[in-house]
């Protein structure tokens, strides 16, 4: 039962892409796949990589007013720098998350648990471990909901908070004669949070967040221009389309007579690529569920830049919408009001289900944090089931 993940902007080859992928895949398998009627362990996830054919910047975006966008100054020198960066980005969107994590937990236990798991997810480089973490996260949130102020919180310290959390979340498990499972991941995640929290809410971090957003928007624009000018036509597809089609074919090849569902999750610009594929490049493709996340599909149809776009829809605004692609049996579009690069789709398309992922956090979205937040997966799963 394959899932195809089509990435969006900001994905460039190397550790960042792959580590992101491992953690994301683990959570997709553990949390989202069951909502689609799939067994996590049986799910294959194919992630075609097209970032190498996106926009290239000859001077490495030197034209940005202030190109410095490194988080190196923050975090512990012993920690994985990518993981630290992801945690700092999360905190940049969480203005209430400051100071001491234990005190934070006393004020908002559920929110702090989410942050700890997000911090652990940030360092996931092993899909199987990420899957375990995801399963643990679901239990942790159930525990936090049932115990908004657990007794042990009163005497917890930084040195034993993760130990206590892990113990109580897994209290019903088969006994093990050591703390195994996700304990090490949680311990590291908590430690990362301890190191990062002092920077949260500071102007320095805020400014860094803004610069990163600039870079993201710039890269997005670049990828859009490159794609639109080089996507090709049916029969002579451009490289990006070919790469994504190859990924879809690989996933289709893994279908069996008994298990023949194809799920596509497209993030950001990946949504536009998928829309073009479904409407022009491979209109016979059958996708059982298309999920676009932080995507601009609706916007691009407003601008009529798809090959299949028709100028006569809408005939009389605001009535008249474009039918969803015939090959997409179900289409869920996830957007976030705080994400400057995410858009609704239902005003433009018939048959699409818009879902607002409410973070309630600051406006400094770096557009890409959806898959770094464990709660995104649980909310998406809930929406898919309903």
């Amino acid at each position, binding site marked *: 039962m394959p899932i195809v993940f089509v990435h969006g902007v900001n994905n460039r*080859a*190397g*550790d960042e892409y*792959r580590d992101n992928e*491992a953690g994301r895949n683990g959570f997709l398998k553990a949390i989202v796949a069951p909502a689609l009627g799939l067994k996590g362990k049986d799910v294959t996830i194919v992630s075609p990589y097209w970032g190498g054919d996106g926009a290239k910047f000859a001077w490495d975006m030197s034209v940005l007013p202030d190109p410095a966008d490194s988080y190196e100054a923050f975090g512990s020198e012993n920690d994985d720098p990518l993981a630290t960066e992801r945690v700092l980005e999360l905190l940049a969107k969480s203005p209430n998350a400051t100071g001491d994590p234990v005190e934070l937990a006393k004020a908002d236990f559920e929110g702090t648990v989410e942050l700890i798991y997000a911090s652990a997810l940030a360092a996931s*480089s*092993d*899909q199987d*471990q990420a899957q375990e973490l995801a399963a643990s996260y679901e239990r942790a949130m159930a525990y936090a909901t049932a115990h908004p102020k657990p007794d042990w919180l009163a005497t917890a310290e930084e040195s034993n908070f993760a130990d206590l959390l892990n113990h109580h979340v897994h209290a019903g498990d088969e006994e093990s004669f050591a703390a195994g499972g996700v304990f090490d991941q949680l311990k590291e995640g908590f430690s990362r949070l301890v190191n990062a929290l002092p920077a949260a809410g500071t102007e320095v971090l805020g400014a860094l967040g803004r610069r990163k957003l600039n870079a993201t928007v710039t890269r997005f624009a670049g990828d859009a221009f490159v794609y639109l000018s080089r996507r090709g036509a049916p029969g002579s597809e451009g490289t990006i389309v070919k790469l994504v089609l190859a990924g879809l*074919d*690989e996933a*289709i*090849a*893994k*279908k*069996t*007579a008994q298990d*023949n569902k194809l799920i596509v999750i497209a993030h950001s610009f990946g949504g536009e690529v998928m829309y073009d594929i479904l409407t022009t490049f491979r209109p*016979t493709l059958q996708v059982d569920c298309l999920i676009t996340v932080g995507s601009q599909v609706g916007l691009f149809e407003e601008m009529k830049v798809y090959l299949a776009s028709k100028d006569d829809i809408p005939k009389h605004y605001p009535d008249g919408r474009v039918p969803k692609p015939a090959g997409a049996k179900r289409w869920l579009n996830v957007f976030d009001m705080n994400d400057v690069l995410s858009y609704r789709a239902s005003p433009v398309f018939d048959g699409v289900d818009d879902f607002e992922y409410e973070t309630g956090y600051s406006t400094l979205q770096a557009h890409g944090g959806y898959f770094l937040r464990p709660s995104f997966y649980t909310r998406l799963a809930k929406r898919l089931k309903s």
Partner: protein
Amino acid sequence: MSDLTVTLNYSSTDYTPAGVAQQTPVALPLKVVDADGVVLADGVAISSEPSSITLPDFEGPPFVRLTWPSGRVQTRRAVPGAASTWTAHFDDSRISHNEWSAWAVLRLGEKSTFAEPSSENDLDIQKFDKVWLRLWKYDEGRWMPAPFAPTQAFHNRAVVQMEFQLGAACWLLQLGAARVPWHFVALPGGGPCRVLITPSESTDPRREPLKVVVTSYRRDAETLLEFLARDSLRAATSLATTGPLATRLLEEKSDDPISAIIGAYFLLRTDGWRSVPTHWFDNLFHMFPWIPDPAIIRCVIALRSGVSVGTGGVERAVADLETAWRRGLPVFAEGITLLQEAASVLRASERAPKHEVFESIERLAASEAWAGAMLSFRGARPTIPSPEKQLGSLERAMDASLRFAENQELSTMGSAVDGFTLLGDVVPNFWAKARSSSPASVPGEKTVNYERGPATRGDVEAYLQKLWEDLLRPNSEARRQVDQAGIDINRLPQRLEDAIRVEDAVGSVDIPGTAVVFLAAAPIVKKVVLDLWKFVALPQIRRRWGDSALRERKPPKTRKARSR
């Protein structure tokens, strides 16, 4: 009393590449038991000569239990001969028919499907083509990447095998990928070496995704060590005390350090070291300064003998440990166990000087992985073993190597990214057809053999021809069945001859066989063709000609691993 003669014909495991001197015979331990399992005798079966075993008086026929290093056991009833004699014969009908890889089957898992050559497994080494490999050599006190240059390489659908010629030094093969933890496997230096890599079939939670099997063509000695690594001391003792191996292991003057080391490890484990003169271990230490194992052995023997504290005995033991560490890393896993024993008792003793080597050894021991008898451990570099699982593609590995080189200012020591290669790139440079008794396999083709039954070859060909014609018609029943099975018809080859070929094949004694060959094509296309055969064509053929039409060919004693 009676005499039992056991013969072992495992000729399919004898394949050696050109340029390699005759390898030592296969030797496997055996037990002779009665019908209740009472042990009548222990012994060894050797491929180069029959084994003769004297049996005490007993009732009923004797049975011979032959054990492979993997733990797999074969049982044969001995056949009576004239005048209180018995014979038992073991042959290689149970071993993979790819002769160039048959040698490894004895050391793959106990339930390995390779030991049932007619059973299909879904192992696919091509899925691991992005696994990166790196060869390391210990040279003048430093671990350096070495050119990855196997002298030969083979592969089939499930296995990649490489031959190396390694100089007298310590060598490590490193593997890693985005989903393969980075780890090292030691390769024995000082001569030819063969490495086989195949996806692991084990359900052991400690397994690595890929199984690596190594030989330096000392099959009998390596088999002994494989049993030792699994704490099968009875089997190891049978091998070490019987036949030509027993003599070879303890030769006074030997130009074969690897066999001598194996012998020494056996002695240490079974306490036989006490009856061997100390100078034998000293000779080993001095004659082969490029291997650490003799230094480890000498250190542990000193410690187990009791050291004289006042006269520098402890200091000498620490010095031997440090010498071992300076010489590189042990070839065999037994070496890590002994290193840890020595380091641990010395570290805990107030009488031993503190030495940084103790922590280094502890870190190595904590990072140990499993590769049978060969040393194996996890980490990014030989000098930085780590119990943490590190994962990452070739790019990440190269990046890590570059960063290390920058930190260490290693600009004068060659390119930091030398020596990397991908598993998928190993084989295209070399290609050799395996000597095999199964239908010739051409790269990319897949063949399935069937007992023919009521449907002849002509029947099957005619059916397939009609099926293909029907598939061209959009509203045909064939199209409906294909759609229902979820098969993407657009991926099927236009012509049947590009998709499937039917041949006569060798069947069992009185039933002719049919081979259905799925022709070389892109993996995606081949999958579609296989699905069409499995879910549409074969069920239809059986509906038409009966359940016994085209039964997949299996030998009488089929054993399948249970899965729950």
